[in-house]
């Protein structure tokens, strides 16, 4: 995976190290040029747009820093900027503390690993409980199970003649055969003559899913100017 290396006045090196240093207060994040940091951050994010697995940590930081940058660009009260910087610093410190603690919890002795429950053979059944062994957790999980099942039943329409993702992929693959790098409307690839409304809906859904899948696989690019505008695709 690509890493973000910063090269700005006041700091040079990877971002996570910066967080670490600022956490230990070896570097004062307030003195780091947030503008430069944000610029390099955005550059990094832009340069890695296809990489959907880009570290979520980086993305969260990028948006926070972009927000901070926009605040800095506006003629704001100096105090407010400092407040935001302070808030950001605190949140980084806090989140890093949580990450550290989550590791520390699992470094504790654990049942089944470092110590064990005592198993004693029991000649007799001893229990004063005639109440079923069911907990609140069981109940909630059971309900969400039913809920999930119910939803999936609803989604499995009674009609099994509906189009599938595979159909959508088949239609969309025509674009790969065209030796054309122009933007084309996605729905041009819908087969003609589907009159049945339900069938048409399923065709649209399978084509849309197919397009997203192809984008994910890096085969095509997808673009939509605005809400409800035409969805355009092109071979990558």
């Amino acid at each position, binding site marked *: 995976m690509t890493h973000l290396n910063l090269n700005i006045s006041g700091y040079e090196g990877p971002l996570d190290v910066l967080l670490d240093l600022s956490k230990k207060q070896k570097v004062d994040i307030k003195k780091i040029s947030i503008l430069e940091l944000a610029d390099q951050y955005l550059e990094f994010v832009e340069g890695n747009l296809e990489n959907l697995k880009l570290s979520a940590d980086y993305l969260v930081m990028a948006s926070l820093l972009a927000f901070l940058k926009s605040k800095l660009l506006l003629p704001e009260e100096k105090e407010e900027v400092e407040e935001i910087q302070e808030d950001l610093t605190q949140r980084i410190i806090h989140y890093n503390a949580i990450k550290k603690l989550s590791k520390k919890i699992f470094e504790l002795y654990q049942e089944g690993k470092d110590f064990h429950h005592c*198993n004693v053979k*029991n*000649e007799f*059944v*001893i*229990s004063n409980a005639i*109440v079923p062994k*069911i907990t609140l957790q069981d109940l909630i999980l059971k309900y969400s199970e039913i809920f999930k099942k119910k939803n999936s039943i609803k989604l499995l329409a009674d009609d099994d003649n509906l189009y599938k993702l595979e159909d959508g992929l088949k239609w969309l693959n025509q674009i790969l055969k065209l030796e054309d790098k122009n933007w084309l409307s996605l729905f041009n690839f819908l087969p003609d003559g589907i009159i049945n409304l339900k069938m048409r809906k399923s065709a649209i859904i399978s084509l849309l899913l197919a397009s997203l899948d192809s984008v994910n696989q890096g085969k095509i690019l997808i673009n939509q100017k605005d809400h409800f505008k035409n969805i355009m695709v092109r071979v990558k």
Partner: protein
Amino acid sequence: MNENEAKCFIESLIFSAQDPLTKDSMKKMLKEYGEFNLDKILNELKSDYENRGIELVELEKRFFFRTSKTLHNYLFVETKKARNLSNAAMETLAIISYHQPVTRAEIEKIRGKPVFRGTLDTLLELKWIKPSGRRETPGRPVTWITDFEFLKHFGLKSIKDLPKVDELESVIL
């Protein structure tokens, strides 16, 4: 490891083993930590647990702890097993708690399966559910709601304290 530690080690091994342990397997494990007299340790443990609530038993060269036979009279009294709630009863209970008041037909519709009278009886017996009036639809079916014991058992202040499903659902599905 000193002698006392070795004894503690063997004691905890027998206690935590899923199945009765053989002498051989204990010997092997003990050897890792030095030379000890396993027979002596086992005999000591046996006498440590004489006249106690549990006893160390040797059966077909395997060792395990079990509740003391001398307590037979006291322990035999309690014979009712903590029963497990059937899947049907759990589902029914979950549906009633989230959809109350709800009729049997409605529960069946949500489950996609029939709900037998016995299932409702089980929950009634526990006082986890109770009937609550009738739905003013053809047939005037009885509706069901959760009862006081339900809240008590699950430590809820009110039925409103159950998490809602959308609260549990993720932001991005």
